[in-house]
C-alpha cells in the first residue's frame, strides 16, 4: 500500500480545467518532486491534496483512507515562511499542536524536543524577524513536521533564498530528512533542486496540467554529497530538459 496516493484528480475553476487526471503515488519515507513550469497547476494540485480545494473528480488516499476535500491530515509549507511575526519561534512551530488542542506548555515542550535536530537551538524565544531567511525556512519546516509527521507538501519552499543559502539549506534538508524520515511531496521549478533532493520526480506539463513522465533517481539520498557536480546528475538534467522541451 502506498502512503499517499491521488487517483485521477481533476480540478476545474469555472470552465477552466487546471489539472487533469493526476495520479501519483508516494511511499513511506519517500521524497517525491513535482517538477514543472509555472502555471502547470502544481499549486492547485497541492491545495487539492491538502484538502483546501475539493477536486471536481478523483480522490486523495492517505494510508488507504479516502481524505478527499478534508483538511488536517497533510501539512504543507510554502515559499513564504508564513511565520507569524507576533509569535516567538517556539510558539510559531508549536502552533499546529495548539490548533489540535494541545495545551500551550505541552505544545512548547513537544516542539522544543526538535529544535536541535532542525538546527534551531537558541531561537526559541526569538521573533521571526530576528532570523535570517534560511533559518526562517527551517523553522517553517519544523512547524510543518509538527503539524503532521505523516506526509508534508512543500511548495517551492526554498525558491526565495539566494543561491548560496539555498545550497546550504539543501544539504541541511537532506540531512534532516535522513533523521526524521518524513514522506514528502516537493514542488519545484528548479531542475537541480529536484534531482538533488528527490527519490523520484514527476514531470508536470501542459495546460491543463498533467503528469507527463516519471523519473527515478538511482543514487540514494544519503550519497548525494556534491552530487550536482557528477556526470550522472548532468545526465538526469539533460533527460529532464528534453522532456520539458517536448511538452
Amino acid at each position, binding site marked *: 500500500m502506498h502512503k499517499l496516493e491521488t487517483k485521477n484528480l481533476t480540478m476545474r475553476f469555472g470552465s477552466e480545467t487546471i489539472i487533469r487526471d493526476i495520479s501519483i503515488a508516494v511511499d513511506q519515507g519517500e521524497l517525491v518532486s513535482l517538477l514543472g513550469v509555472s502555471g502547470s497547476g502544481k499549486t492547485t494540485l497541492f491545495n487539492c491534496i491538502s484538502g483546501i480545494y475539493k477536486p471536481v473528480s478523483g480522490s486523495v488516499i492517505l494510508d488507504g483512507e479516502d481524505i478527499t476535500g478534508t483538511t*488536517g491530515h497533510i501539512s504543507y509549507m510554502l515559499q513564504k515562511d508564513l511565520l*507569524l511575526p507576533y509569535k516567538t519561534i517556539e510558539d510559531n512551530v508549536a502552533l499546529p499542536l495548539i*490548533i489540535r488542542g494541545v495545551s500551550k506548555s505541552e505544545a512548547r515542550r513537544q516542539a522544543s524536543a526538535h529544535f536541535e535536530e532542525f538546527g534551531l537551538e537558541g531561537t526559541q524565544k526569538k521573533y521571526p524577524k530576528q532570523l535570517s531567511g534560511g533559518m526562517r525556512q527551517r523553522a517553517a519546516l519544523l512547524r510543518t513536521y509538527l503539524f503532521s509527521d505523516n506526509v508534508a507538501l512543500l511548495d517551492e519552499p526554498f525558491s526565495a533564498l539566494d543561491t548560496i543559502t539555498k545550497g546550504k539549506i539543501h544539504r541541511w534538508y537532506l540531512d534532516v530528512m535522513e533523521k526524521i524520515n518524513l514522506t514528502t511531496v516537493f514542488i519545484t521549478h528548479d531542475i537541480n533542486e529536484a534531482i538533488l533532493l528527490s527519490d523520484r520526480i514527476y514531470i508536470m506539463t501542459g495546460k491543463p496540467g498533467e503528469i507527463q513522465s516519471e523519473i527515478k533517481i538511482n543514487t540514494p539520498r544519503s550519497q548525494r554529497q556534491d552530487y550536482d557536480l557528477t556526470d550522472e546528475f548532468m545526465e538526469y538534467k539533460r533527460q529532464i530538459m528534453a522532456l520539458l522541451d517536448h511538452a
Partner: protein
Amino acid sequence: MKRKSASTTNKIYPIISILAILALWECLSLFEVVPNYMLPSPAQTVEAFIHDFGLLMSHLKVTLLETLIGTIMGVSIGFASAVLMDRWDPAYKAMYPIIVLTQTIPAVAIAPLLVLWFGYKMMPKVILIILITFFPIVIGTLDGFRSADKDAINLLRSMGATRWQIFRHIKFPNALPNFFSGLKITVAYAVVGAVLAEWLGGFAGLGVYMTRVKKSFAYDKMFAVIFLISIISLILIGLVNVLQTKCMPWERVDDFEEHVRSKKAKETINY
C-alpha cells in the same frame, strides 16, 4: 548606541520649535502687540493655572470620568462591531455605509441635540464620546481583520483550525497595530468631545469651567484650561503608547538585518 543618539537629536528640533513659539508669544504680550487682556503671556497663563489648580482638578475629574466611560464603551462597541462585520458579510454591507454616514454629521451639530434629549448630566457627554470614538476603532480594526494574510489563514485552515482559532491566532493580532492607531486618535478626540458637550450644557467639567471663565473675560484662565486639555490628551496618547508596547512586544526587537548591521550578529544564529 547609534540609534539612541539619533533619537536624542530628533527630540531637540521639536523642543527648539516649541521654545521659539513660547518666546514669540511672550514677546507679543510683553510688548503689547496684542492687548494683554486678549492674549495673556505664557507666564500669566502658568500663574492662572497655579492659582486655579484646585478648581481645575475638580473639573478635570468630571471630564476624565466621562472620557473614560465614553471611551471604554465606544471602543468596546467599535471592536464588537468590527468582529461582527468581519464575521458576517451582510452585517458589513448593512452597517458600513451607516457608520461612514454618522461621521459626516459634525459633533458640534449633534452635541446640543444630545444635551436637549439627555439633559445636563453625564449621559449626553458619554454618548457623544461613544459616537466620536466608535469610528476610528471600528474602521481600523476591521481593516486589520480583513488585511490578514490569506496564505496564513489557509495554512491554519489546512491544520484544521476553527474560525475562532483563525481569529485568535491570525486576525486579532494582525489588527492590533490598526487598533492602537485608532485608539490614539480616539483618546485625543474623546477629551475634546467631552469638553465640547460640557461647553454646551452641564454642571461640572472643564467645558463648564471654560464657559464660566469666558463669560468673566478671564482669558489667562482660558489659556490655562486649554493648556491642561492639551497636556491631558498628550498623557492619554502616551498611555496608549505604553499599552501598545506592552501588548506588542515583538515590535521592540531589532530586525535580523539591523542586528547584523549593528554588529550584534553573534547573538543571532546565522549560517
